[in-house]
């Protein structure tokens, strides 16, 4: 059996009401709100967060994959990777300490990349041994033209699925692809924003017929009738369109359609169908049949069968915890500032490619050192112990990502698009201390003793590099 063994999602903390967009830019507001990445987040960092949640839900402690060499592949599917050239997957793989023997790659360009990754992962696992694993990460931070319909629709978020041959929660039973050169959304080399085709045209000649073909093809291949399907989980550029698709195929929109989260999160592109699937899995019963369908450049559908193991996921963190921590972003200009569309920072930071490369273990994987002589824990890493003077007597020490605030401040001098900047001194659970920025927090809620988690973020763009590091953020749910 090959299938999904664990899932994780990540939604950014901020929500932008569509009314706020309409008030700022004119036009009619769609209903609800959308999830918006903080200024220090991109598809890569959100992908890291979703991956953490997925691996932790599986039971892997941070930094300790007992069978790391069993990771056969890591796919990062996104149409908004922060890199035009260079993988995001390799960065995620480094942070997660996936073994270098794994096949690690990005799947760019099409919103159904996540479904493609599942199909590729399933094939790779077919050749692997019993312990083999594949991690599929999807994340999106797409930017639309301010004031456009897409600006209201697009939300940011991420989801990750662990594919394996054991502990399977939902087995992949069948797969069906319809390829087509149909441009519904696209972004060319120099386009600052995602473009969308004429709505009536792309919906009636693209989305509806192509998705129908894939879903009907899958049903036929599996010899199933639509009434036998418990949940239809489909990519949803908009709620209305999904309902239209379900009706066209004869599905009951009230009971058979999975939650698309369009009104609370928005169209998160590649990640959307995964987020929707995670939510559906959280409510699934053993034996349930799901169709999961992705769209763009054709359509792709898979059939999942939920197993008995689904009962083990009751305590898993999922979409709900992320919805609960929502904080309103009340200003459209702040949203533009978060996305570097307005505002400019003169005070470019120093950085160095060689320095970042030398310190990858410390800065991406969060390894400090522990002195063999006096057992003192040092982060940042050092060769000579400043407690006992021992030289080159250090062993690696992986920091915990969880800790409590020892002291803090809200700083109004440091520049960031979301002032004041909260600075936190965090004593980490297993020893060592983190000193750095805090994010996703209401400054007035910060307290000495508060529990926080370290989150992978982009600190700055100094020297034309994406300088990723860690910040503290409030825990999400029972994290």
């Amino acid at each position, binding site marked *: 059996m090959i299938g999904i063994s664990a899932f994780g999602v990540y939604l950014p903390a901020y929500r932008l009401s569509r009314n706020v967009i309409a008030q700022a830019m004119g036009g009619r507001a769609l209903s609800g709100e959308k999830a918006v990445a903080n200024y220090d987040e991109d598809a890569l960092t959100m992908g890291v967060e979703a991956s953490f949640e997925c691996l932790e839900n599986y039971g892997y402690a941070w930094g300790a994959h007992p069978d790391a060499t069993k990771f056969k592949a890591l796919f990062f599917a996104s149409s908004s990777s922060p890199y035009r050239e260079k993988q995001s997957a390799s960065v995620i793989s480094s942070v997660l300490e996936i073994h270098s023997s794994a096949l690690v790659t990005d799947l760019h360009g099409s919103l159904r990349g996540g479904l493609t990754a599942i199909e590729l992962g399933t094939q790779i696992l077919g050749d692997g041994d019993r312990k083999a694993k594949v991690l599929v990460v999807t994340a999106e931070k797409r930017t639309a033209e301010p004031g456009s319909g897409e600006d209201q629709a697009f939300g940011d978020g991420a989801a990750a699925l662990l594919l394996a041959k054991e502990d399977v929660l939902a087995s992949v039973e069948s797969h069906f692809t319809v390829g087509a050169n149909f441009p519904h959304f696209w972004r060319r080399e120099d386009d600052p924003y995602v473009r969308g085709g004429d709505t009536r045209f792309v919906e009636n000649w693209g989305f509806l017929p192509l998705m129908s073909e894939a879903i009907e093809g899958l049903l036929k291949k599996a010899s199933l009738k639509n009434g036998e399907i418990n949940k239809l989980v489909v990519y949803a550029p908009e709620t209305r369109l999904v309902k239209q698709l379900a009706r066209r195929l004869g599905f009951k929109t009230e009971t058979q359609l999975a939650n698309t989260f369009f009104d609370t999160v928005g169209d998160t592109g590649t990640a959307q169908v995964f987020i929707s699937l995670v939510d559906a899995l959280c409510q699934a019963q053993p034996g349930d049949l799901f169709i999961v369908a992705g769209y763009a450049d054709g359509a792709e559908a898979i059939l999942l069968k939920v197993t008995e193991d689904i009962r083990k996921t009751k305590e898993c963190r999922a979409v709900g915890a992320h919805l609960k921590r929502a904080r309103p972003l009340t200003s459209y200009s702040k949203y533009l500032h978060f996305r570097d569309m307005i505002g400019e920072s003169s005070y470019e930071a120093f950085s160095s490619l060689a320095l970042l490369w030398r310190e990858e273990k410390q800065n991406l994987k969060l390894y400090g050192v522990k002195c063999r002589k006096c057992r003192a824990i040092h982060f940042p890493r050092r060769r000579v112990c400043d407690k006992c003077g021992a030289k080159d007597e250090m062993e690696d020490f992986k920091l915990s990502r969880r800790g409590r605030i020892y002291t803090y401040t809200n700083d109004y001098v440091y520049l960031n698009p979301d002032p004041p900047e909260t600075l936190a*001194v965090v004593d980490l659970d297993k020893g060592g201390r983190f000193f750095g920025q805090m994010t996703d927090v209401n400054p007035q809620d910060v307290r000495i003793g508060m529990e926080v988690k370290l989150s992978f973020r982009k600190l700055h763009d100094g020297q034309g590099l994406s300088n990723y590091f860690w910040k503290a953020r409030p825990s999400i749910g029972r994290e």
Partner: protein
Amino acid sequence: MAGLLKEQIAIIGTGCTKFGENFTQSWADLAIEAAVEACEDAKIELRDIEAAWVGSFRPWIAGERNTGSPLAEALGFVYKPVTLVSNICATGLDTLRNACLAVASGMYDLVLAIGVEKMRDAGPRSLSLANRTEGHPLIGKGRTAPSFFASCAHRYFHEYGIGRETLAKVAVKNHHNGAMNPKAHLQREITIEDVLKAAWVAEPLSILDSTANSDGAAAAIVTRVDLARNFRSDYILLKGIGLSVGTERNIFDPDFDFLCFKPTQEAARMAYLQAGIKSARLEIDIAEVHDCFTITEIINYEDLGFADRGKGWRLIEEGVTILEGKLPVNTDGGLKAFGHPLGASGLRMVYEVVKQLQGKAGLRQVKNARLGLAHTLGGPGALAAVAVLGRSE
């Protein structure tokens, strides 16, 4: 080792510019003004100086080179030995220390220690944001001087139960002293209410809990004690000087409590040992301490031994450190009101201590001050210097 400098070194001249937003003055203008005043005070000519140490933390932000040359250029001091000293906020006192060591070595008889900092050519936020643009690209990124000391203040509040009003009293005291000082950057009285109502810099510190961002320079002429009487009778003795340099990564050290600064304690221990001081709180008559923020002055009281751990706040509450108190601190206004051009501050403190010991401090004169202390603290409590100065008779 200890006692090498004891009673060997004398300061025979001091100079100090007005601190402030000296937009009409260049780095060189500041250096000339302080050096010339020090020379006139010592009744010597610039050309009499054999060697110079110049303290300037960031000369490059004022368009100067990061070498001894800007001073040689400014003072026409070419082809003599000039050394640049840069040790963050301890720069000024470390400059004095190096000059004193050179004289003590016997290599030179008459040397100049000068601190110069031209802050305001680089804009008001240049220093606050230095850690954003400079240094390690990731580690500790986001720290500013205010945010570090504000974190200390939150922890101090948490441990000892004091609040912003106590901190405000430090600012009120130092502004009161500064208002009597024609060379201070900020010469106005303020109230506790003013401090509490001022704009945040980093919670719980407001702009009035914070030092001013100033241009300025200060200088001292140093010679051997046996030569000092040839210049003046009221020369001042360097009785002890200590420098302690730790790591700026102390902020990551789980043992660091954010309530005291080990470098201050160590630098004080060194200076007190040389000066033969057993009890600083009983023996020191006046002190200039590093009050970059109000909380820092209170922590300094404890680290310098003026108060026990956790009791520093009592000195300000009980009026011990006001001008008329038992141990007046920052009689010239301190960093808070006098201003803080980084490399100059340590020598500015020396200037005030010398004037107080010579009985030339004007309206701020403390009666019968015989032993004075200067203290500077740099980075996130990462390094510190302490000097003890005394009357010659």
